[in-house]
């Protein structure tokens, strides 16, 4: 796993300061979606080889939720953005 993460707010920090919060590419089904969609959303996760987007919480730093794009094979980090700001369309 990547050992250094460049937080857009705090700069480069060791991974120990962060908590990995899982796949950032899945989206919540609509309230009236079927059982299968919900089962999928709640329980099923891919184990991708290569590029992967994940939520990382900077729990021992600025406490912001980040989206880290990393390669599960090379451990290279391709980009880190603030999750909330990305959702609002702004940069960090």
């Amino acid at each position, binding site marked *: 796993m990547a050992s250094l993460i460049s937080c857009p*707010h*705090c*700069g*480069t*920090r*060791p991974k*120990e*300061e962060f908590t990995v919060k899982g796949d950032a590419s899945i989206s919540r089904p609509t309230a009236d979606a079927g059982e299968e969609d919900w089962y999928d959303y709640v329980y099923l996760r891919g184990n991708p080889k290569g590029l992967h987007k994940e939520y990382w919480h*900077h729990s*021992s*730093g*600025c*406490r*912001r939720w980040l989206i880290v794009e990393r390669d599960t094979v090379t451990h290279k980090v391709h980009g880190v953005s*603030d999750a909330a700001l990305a959702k609002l369309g702004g940069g*960090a």
Partner: protein
Amino acid sequence: MPDLPIYRPALAGKAALGGETIRLEALPEGHLLHVMGAATTEEIKAHLLGTGLKASSVRPAGYRQWFVAGNDRLSAMHLRALTEALAGRAFISDQSHGRIRIRVSGLNAAQVLNKGTAVDLHPSAFPEGSTAMTLFGHISMQLTRTGADDFELTVLRSFAESLHEELEALAVAHGAEHLAS
């Protein structure tokens, strides 16, 4: 702190430690304000001057968050003045009772601190005035460089003793001794 019957400083009874190259001391429990909002560091600094809080310093604590710290107890009047000055821009949560500051200084200060934090403390990466929310071992803290060989650690009150004990051991390893208080 009207809800607490007895006021006792968290690190009361801890003598300062000093040696040739390292010094460790608990700072007075003055004031520590958590500021949150869409303000800027410069704006908060200007309001501190405007409300007569010249001795307070502003430290960024993450996205749209700051800590304002100083050695003096803050009067209700000052706090109200600052709250009003920042109205519409930022909110203040008075954490003076909740967080403790510890000072680590001396030629070996950075070396001692790097036993517990992974932040790059080289002056080129972390010059005077820099601040970081980070860990010391497993304890969350805010680290600020207040001088070339001068650092302040801000820690949650209930972790203050534990952090202080760790720092004590490190300071002693660098030749520091307890100073008579």
